[in-house]
């Protein structure tokens, strides 16, 4: 007898599995850790620090959701993670770490967390997250890998990792290097080529103008004037160090600053020049702090001060100084400059140039009759489709229209999509946000997201679509189920299946549902093992996921079926019901034809 209940792990269990798989290092939490002997105190009005200290995960989640900065220090120089570690709340600590709390052992805050950790399990948790930090948001991750894919940056990055981590974590460096996935395989992805190279102390840093301009008015000014035609810029000033500029530019791409403590003063000066006011303020404060923080370090003997680092996440800065806002600004300029048709005439171009707005756009994309100005580096970083198309444009027929625009900028044409949808896609590519989406566009956006290989967009659309689905008719829900199955949008697919399984009789009465059954590949074979047997590769339908009807049966069994050995009978019952419905559907079609 097969106990079918085991074939589907509970969501909770699944989540834990995913977590364990995600960080790779086994950090099992004993049930005892989860339910301490002393009941946890709730702190309904507490701030982040109080909630962490009390281990009140509900409150913590609320605060983090509301956008609290997890890396903030209180007046005793402590971060929330420190209190969670000190009090031994593994759950709270994990929550903070997931939210991006700094835990690197060689930072001031991370060091204190390690020192204060109640037990070894907490320390292991800290190490696990240092080795495998939670993923960056898709926008940051994409731009960061574009930056690090440039050969010079990559080499510098690996060198720094090895140097700062020492022998202890040479493996970590290798893991981090492997973390860029396809970039290792040089044949499959070429980096998007940088258009400017800086040399400090003779060492190169490669970058893209569009990003630098978006983040700093200093670079914007320079690229408009002195450096307009330059391919490389050499700095010989003693006041600028390689490490400082490298970490600043890395920060521009990823909103994550990691710098040697020794380079901090230097970096603060660079920020002043680049007019990154808020970042400079934080750095100035931190320089002072570090000066007096020495005596608080735990193991000074083996922690050479030159190896100490300072890590800052974008969330410590005000909203308008973060990456998405910066890109939002250039996107707005781009959209304002994007015109209706007539792009080939010189006139509008002249106008946009005269107006003095310089968004440094380096790509025109024509959709329907509107021409959008965009930035190659952002599109190429976000979408592999555009990366390929931009690198191929000389080979394929586009080469002919390449120079049509007056200022020799590349000009692509995208067919068969609406301008509204493309505007949404642009917004998402620049800012990770999707604000003006109408549910009626969801279908088109799913298609674009798949085609452009911009998979995170599907999740974003699904999040907006879900509340809307609560009010649609059964017939429409069938449509969405079909779509989500084709475009592989797990969230919507699961939701539709759940609703259908729980209201099966209502759907059985819906004509659209019966018609849908006919178009689906039939559920897999008859034996009782079918639910645990993986479907053979190469069978009909989308093979990268389960059979839709099989999954529906699972859901239905979960909701309706009897226990244990009677479960198989329930399954048979369900199959018979499906067959009957299909017969009805066939009849209906025949009647229509007659």
């Amino acid at each position, binding site marked *: 007898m097969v106990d079918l209940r085991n074939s589907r792990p509970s969501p909770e269990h699944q989540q834990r599995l995913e977590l364990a798989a995600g960080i790779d290092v086994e950090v099992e939490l004993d049930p005892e850790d989860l339910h301490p002997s002393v009941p946890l105190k709730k702190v309904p009005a507490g701030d982040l620090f109080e909630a962490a200290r009390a281990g009140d995960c509900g409150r913590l989640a609320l605060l983090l959701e509301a956008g609290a900065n997890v890396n903030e220090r209180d007046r005793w120089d402590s971060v929330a993670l420190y209190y969670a570690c000190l009090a031994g709340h593994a759950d709270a600590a994990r929550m903070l770490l997931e939210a991006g709390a700094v835990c690197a052992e060689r930072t001031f805050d991370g060091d204190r967390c390690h020192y204060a950790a109640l037990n070894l399990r907490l320390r292991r948790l800290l190490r696990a997250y240092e080795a495998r930090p939670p993923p960056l948001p898709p926008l940051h991750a994409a731009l960061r890998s574009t930056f690090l894919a440039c050969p010079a940056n990559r080499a510098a990055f690996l060198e720094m990792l090895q140097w700062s981590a020492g022998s202890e974590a040479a493996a970590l460096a290798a893991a981090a290097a492997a973390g860029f996935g396809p970039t290792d395989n040089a*044949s*499959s992805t070429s980096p998007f080529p940088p258009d400017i190279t800086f040399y400090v102390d003779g060492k190169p840093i490669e970058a893209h103008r569009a990003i630098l301009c978006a983040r700093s008015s200093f670079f914007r000014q320079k690229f408009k004037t002195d450096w307009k035609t330059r391919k490389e810029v050499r700095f010989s000033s003693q006041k600028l160090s390689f490490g400082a500029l490298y970490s600043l530019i890395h920060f521009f791409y990823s909103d994550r600053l990691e710098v040697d403590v020794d380079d901090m003063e230097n970096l603060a000066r660079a920020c002043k020049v680049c007019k990154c006011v808020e970042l400079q303020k934080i750095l100035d404060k931190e320089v002072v702090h570090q000066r007096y923080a020495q005596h608080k370090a735990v193991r000074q003997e083996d922690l050479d001060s030159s190896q100490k680092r300072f890590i800052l996440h974008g969330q410590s800065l005000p909203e308008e100084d973060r990456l998405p806002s910066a890109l939002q600004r250039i996107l707005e300029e781009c959209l304002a400059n994007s015109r209706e048709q007539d792009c080939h005439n010189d006139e509008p171009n002249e106008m946009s140039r005269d107006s003095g707005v310089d968004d440094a756009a380096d790509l025109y994309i024509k959709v329907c009759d509107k021409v959008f100005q965009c930035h190659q580096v952002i599109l190429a970083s976000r979408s*592999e*489709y555009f990366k*390929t*198309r931009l690198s*191929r*444009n000389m*080979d*394929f*027929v*586009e*080469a*002919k*229209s390449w120079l049509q625009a007056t200022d020799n900028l590349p000009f692509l*044409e*995208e*067919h*068969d999509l609406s301008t509204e949808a493309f505007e949404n896609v642009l917004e998402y590519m620049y800012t990770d946000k999707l604000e003006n989406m109408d549910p009626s566009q969801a279908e088109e956006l799913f298609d674009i997201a*798949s*085609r452009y*290989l911009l998979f995170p967009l599907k999740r974003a659309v699904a999040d907006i679509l879900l509340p809307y689905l609560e009010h649609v008719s059964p017939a429409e829900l069938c449509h969405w189920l*079909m*779509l989500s199955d*084709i*475009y592989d949008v797990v969230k919507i697919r699961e939701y539709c299946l759940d609703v259908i399984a729980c209201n099966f009789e209502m759907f059985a009465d819906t004509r659209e549902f019966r*018609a*849908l059954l006919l*178009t689906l590949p039939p559920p897999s074979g008859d034996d009782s093992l079918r639910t645990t047997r993986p479907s053979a*590769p*190469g069978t*009909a*339908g*989308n*093979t*990268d996921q389960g059979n839709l009807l099989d999954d529906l049966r699972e859901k239905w069994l979960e909701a309706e079926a009897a226990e244990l050995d009677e479960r198989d009978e329930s399954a048979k019952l369900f199959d018979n019901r499906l067959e009957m419905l299909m017969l009805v559907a066939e009849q209906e079609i025949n009647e229509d034809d007659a």
Partner: protein
Amino acid sequence: MTPSRHYRIQSYCFNGVPMDAATAAGNCKAVTDAIRDIYAQEDMGSLVFEELYRCAYNLVLHGQGELLYTEMEKAMAAEVEGIRGSLSAVADDSGEFLQELLSKWHLHTKAVAAIRDIVKYMDRMFVVANGKASVHDLGVKIWRDSVVCSGDVMPRLVEAVRRERPAAEEPAGDVMAGVDKMLAELGDEVHRGVMDASSADE
């Protein structure tokens, strides 16, 4: 400048009916024709990337990935077979054979890269989900099995390498370096096999 060819991108609207065989075959043909063109002419002047990408994308999206994959494999194999035929017409003497082999190899790798870009959606989704060989690997495999390791190329290659092989201390010439690189890419086994065979009875 020639007026740009008028073309229409066919969008495949989903209406609950799986893609019919005729449409699927048509899309497939567009891709295989493009593969032929890519091998035939290096500038690919008549191909429209967006159109081809869309064809391949629609096929995979509607469960025809298997069809596309096998058709693509067949088309690539046929082209490579043609290359092998043309190689047998090249004279054996001097370095001409190696040079020709190398230039065809470069043509092939360039073509495979272009094909991979066209069927990128398949390469990312279908190939991964079904554990097939990626387009790049497939290109290498076809070249290895039907050119380098084939009955009529292998002996000539070994012979040519033996003749051209530099003396122990000398740096290798351009052609030899290229051949070395190609063999290395085809895998250790082939590389070692050729090198061993060519130095066996010296």
